[in-house]
């Protein structure tokens, strides 16, 4: 891989030194960590068999997560259009482009959970904060893809439509929309799948959905119910991925 032996060995030594430094600098309660294997065994034995008795609670959480994901994907998909247009350098004026790009960078940098907790502080506990978090994440993700697709389009067809005397909105629906629509829908469906995954976690900081239930089971050492929830989440994510692949396959 690396031809130069000096560089190769240098990198290796640097890696070893980094390992020593990082492991040394971590504040670890080794006595507590040493019990890990032991505790893991106990936790796993308490997890089995998974407890599906409280299925109505489980179902309510899952449905709430699913609704959060659906609502957020739909809203995000629509709001991503103006942001995506503004963030495409070939159609937006320079200042608008710069503002839109900074919004994209900012929203992509912060983890969903950080955004969720800020929304929880503003809007209080509950699904509203969760939906808003997922909306922000969706706008950012779809908007970025949209902007890149528009930039990759090139100017040719837009130039041709402009030359017919069409106004800017008509240039958009004729010169831009048909070319990017299939990928836009594909990305949106993918985002729905991602939102289903993320909706299970924003609840941990109180933003609604099954995550809230899950986090409660951990603090109550209610591990058999935890496992039931985890298995349901895995199944849901699996189904979501399957659905998303199926739809994207049909979109060509």
């Amino acid at each position: 891989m690396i031809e130069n032996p000096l560089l190769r060995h240098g990198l290796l030594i640097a890696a070893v030194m980094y390992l020593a430094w990082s492991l040394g600098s971590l504040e670890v309660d080794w006595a507590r960590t040493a019990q890990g294997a032991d505790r893991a065994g106990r936790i796993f034995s308490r997890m089995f068999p998974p407890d599906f008795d409280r299925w109505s609670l489980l179902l309510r959480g899952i449905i709430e997560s699913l609704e959060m994901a659906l609502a957020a994907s739909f809203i995000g998909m629509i709001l991503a259009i103006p942001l995506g247009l503004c963030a495409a350098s070939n159609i937006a004026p320079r200042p608008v482009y710069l503002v839109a790009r900074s919004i994209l960078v900012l929203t992509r940098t912060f983890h969903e959970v950080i955004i969720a907790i800020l929304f929880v502080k503003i809007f209080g506990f509950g699904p509203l904060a969760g939906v808003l978090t997922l909306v922000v994440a969706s706008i950012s993700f779809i908007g970025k893809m949209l902007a890149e697709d528009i930039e990759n389009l090139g100017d040719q067809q837009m130039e041709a439509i402009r030359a017919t005397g069409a106004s800017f909105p008509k240039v958009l629906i004729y010169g831009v929309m048909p070319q990017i629509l299939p990928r836009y829908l594909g990305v949106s469906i993918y985002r729905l799948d991602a939102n289903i995954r993320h909706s299970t976690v924003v609840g941990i900081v109180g933003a609604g959905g099954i995550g809230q239930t899950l986090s409660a089971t951990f603090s109550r050492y209610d591990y058999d119910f935890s496992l039931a929830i985890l298995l349901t989440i895995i199944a849901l994510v699996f189904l979501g991925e399957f659905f998303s692949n199926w739809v994207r396959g049909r979109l060509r």
Partner: protein
Amino acid sequence: MLRIESLSKSYTLDTQALNDVSFEVTEPQVVAIIGPSGAGKSTLIRCINRLVEPSSGHAILNGENVTSLNSSGLRKARRRMGMIFQEYNLVERLTVMENVLSGRLGYVSFWQAWRRSYPPEDIADAFKLLERVGLEGYQDKRADALSGGQRQRVGIARALMQKPDLLLVDEPTASLDPKTSRQVMRILVELAHELHTPTLLNIHDVPLAKNFADRVLGMQDGRLIFDGTTEELTEEALTRIYGEEDWSVDTKKNVDEGVDTASTAFKATST
């Protein structure tokens, strides 16, 4: 019909893509613009419908100064100027019919454009033009399923849908093989004459230009240095435009047969 008055364009401070170009087209004729790469042919065409904003000078179409129009006035002026492109510039994922109808976009409302509900006479016109360019029955094919020659015919139909007062044509054959080039040129020139539409045509292929145009403009370094009929385009004139070269192959009368070799010979020397 069309008057160009000392049109200039500079992209950067020290280079002039277009330098004080003036000429007039007074009758519906096909005017070929020839010249080496980078001579400003494409810039000239695009400055007329302001896809490129000229730095100074005027373009006056049927008495209206296009260069001084505001954006809505410009859109109205663009409706009257059909444009045909080197790379066809069709919207690939739209059908042939939608591409042709897009020539009417300046005349329909946004909602009509969105719903694709064009007036019946536009649709009849589109069918007629499709038949005229030899694409009868292709209306529901997607543009990306067509060959280069077919795409350029759609491009011609789209431009003519505008019922233009002026056709701007930018290297219509540069991406096509010699045989298809001739077919496309023939259709284009026939239609331009038939509809009495003055046509400004960029072309680097001198034999094609001599064969199909009524008048030739020669450009070099952003300046107009030749203006005359195809007969007046002598070896001496070509040398002025392109520089020293043996032009005997290109100035032969029987270009019809010699086009393949001539155009390749020309390309080899010019690049």
